[in-house]
């Protein structure tokens, strides 16, 4: 398994190419510097731990190699835990270095909980949920995504509304929801699904973006209105957050079609999507996301042009 992981990492580095690899290293270095400075205070360390736990939970729910690991390994949970602790090495090193031992204990407690198997009723709940009645037939990512992340979405938003009297609650639930929504655009559809729109490349991309913007703005309206009602002094925070998330989601859509290959997942696509996810937390990365978004718009057009050229 260790050998497989090393081989996978090697292949991913090769697929990314040198410029992207350098970009990845630069982002990692910036992230590490930020983590070091944030974890100096107990509050910063606490936030870092909670966000990392959320990221690990999301990563664990979405990884495709779980059935493989369950079959091949005697103790898959121990293996996953070891992997996640290795991935979080910078965080726990920073926490230990700054002497935030309570936060370290929280991390050691929460990471195993975050990867516990979801209750079996999850699929039944997803089945009962009928977004198809409310959403346009083309919003296939939303229909699949809302069911896939049904449970975390309900938990995050219920918690957000319940704690809405605290100014941080609704914006935080909005960030986490926005993060999950980015995951809706992770999987590539099949060629027949792509062609079912019967649109040329540019109209296809704009349709996808506009449809998403419409749905996301609508579902963000209730928390935004409640937030503005409860905390009018920060009225600008939620519209700004929704706008930021819309930019990041548009970026995720463009990444998807830049690296689109019917039914295949692209390591480079995964990396750039993750970069968008990180940008939700590090405003420093936002200009880079904007620039990459513009570049990816043209790259996405070129990539899907051979598949949709005839709908011109």
């Amino acid at each position: 398994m260790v050998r497989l992981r090393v081989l996978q990492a090697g292949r991913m580095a090769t697929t990314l190419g040198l410029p992207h690899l350098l970009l990845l290293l630069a982002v990692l270095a910036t992230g590490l510097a930020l983590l070091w400075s944030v974890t100096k205070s107990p509050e910063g360390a606490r936030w870092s731990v909670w966000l990392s736990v959320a990221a690990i939970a999301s990563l664990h729910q979405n990884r495709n190699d779980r059935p493989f690991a369950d079959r091949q390994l005697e103790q898959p949970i121990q293996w996953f835990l070891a992997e996640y602790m290795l991935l979080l090495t910078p965080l726990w090193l920073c926490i230990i270095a700054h002497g935030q031992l309570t936060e370290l204990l929280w991390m050691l407690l929460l990471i195993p909980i975050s990867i516990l198997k979801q209750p079996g009723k999850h699929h039944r709940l997803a089945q009962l949920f009928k977004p198809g009645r409310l959403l346009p037939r083309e919003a296939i990512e939303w229909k699949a995504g809302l069911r896939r992340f049904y449970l975390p979405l309900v938990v995050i938003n219920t918690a957000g509304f319940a704690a809405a009297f605290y100014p941080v609650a609704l914006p935080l639930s909005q960030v986490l929801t926005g993060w999950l929504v980015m995951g809706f655009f992770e999987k590539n559809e099949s060629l027949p699904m792509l062609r079912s729109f019967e649109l040329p490349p540019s109209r296809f991309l704009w349709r996808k973006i506009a449809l998403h913007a419409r749905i996301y703005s609508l579902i963000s309206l209730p928390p935004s209105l409640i937030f503005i009602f409860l905390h009018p002094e920060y009225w600008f925070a939620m519209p700004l957050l929704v706008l930021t998330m819309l930019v990041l989601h548009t970026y995720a859509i463009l990444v998807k079609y830049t690296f689109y290959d019917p039914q295949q997942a692209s390591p480079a696509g995964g990396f750039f999507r993750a970069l968008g996810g990180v940008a939700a937390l590090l405003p420093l990365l936002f200009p880079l996301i904007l620039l990459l978004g513009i570049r990816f718009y043209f790259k996405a057009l070129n990539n899907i042009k051979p598949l949709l050229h005839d709908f011109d």
Partner: protein
Amino acid sequence: MILIDSISFAWQKDQPLFNGFSLSLTEGEIHGIAGLNGAGKTTLLNILASYLKPDHGHISINGNKPSGKQIAFLETENFFYAYITGREYLQLFKNKHFNDDAWNELFGLPLDELIEHYSTGMKKKLAIMACIRSDKPVMILDEPFNGLDLESSRMLRSLLLKIRASKTILITSHILESLTNLCDHIHYIEKGKLVFSQAKQDFDEIEHKIFRSLEDKHKDLLGRLLDS
């Protein structure tokens, strides 16, 4: 009519799979593409569906470039979002006149269940139903019988025979019988080369042509392996 004119295609440079491959497929008939594993059947279908671009040569469908407007394509492995229902998937393919529930009496799918709960055969039937729903003049079906039970295979055969008059249907299968029972023409390819094309009335010769040389080869190899 589909005209494939001297196409060349290589997955790796200097190792062409197709090199000047030509074939013409007449309308209103079912054409079968047969060949061993790795012969290039799926690659050829992907080129026809304009998912892959040939390095040289050109393809025309009724005088036009191949396009998604004309082709319904059933891929070997059908990918679906697990968390959508069969009905939601079908509704992606616009067709006002197609009644999902009426057609589903034939296919017998739980259309309001999530695709995650579908078996391999059910997913295949859903993909076939989507091809029919999209109502294109050309249907390209890569291994449509894979994963189907006996009853569904027979149903699909009857269905294709019924609709062939208004369409050009191209099918691959690694099971020769499923092609001989259905097709009007069978084209046998080997390592990217067209070995022969046979019309329905001469299908008896196909097995003889394909398997005689293979049987000799296998006998020879098995003899050597078991003796050692």
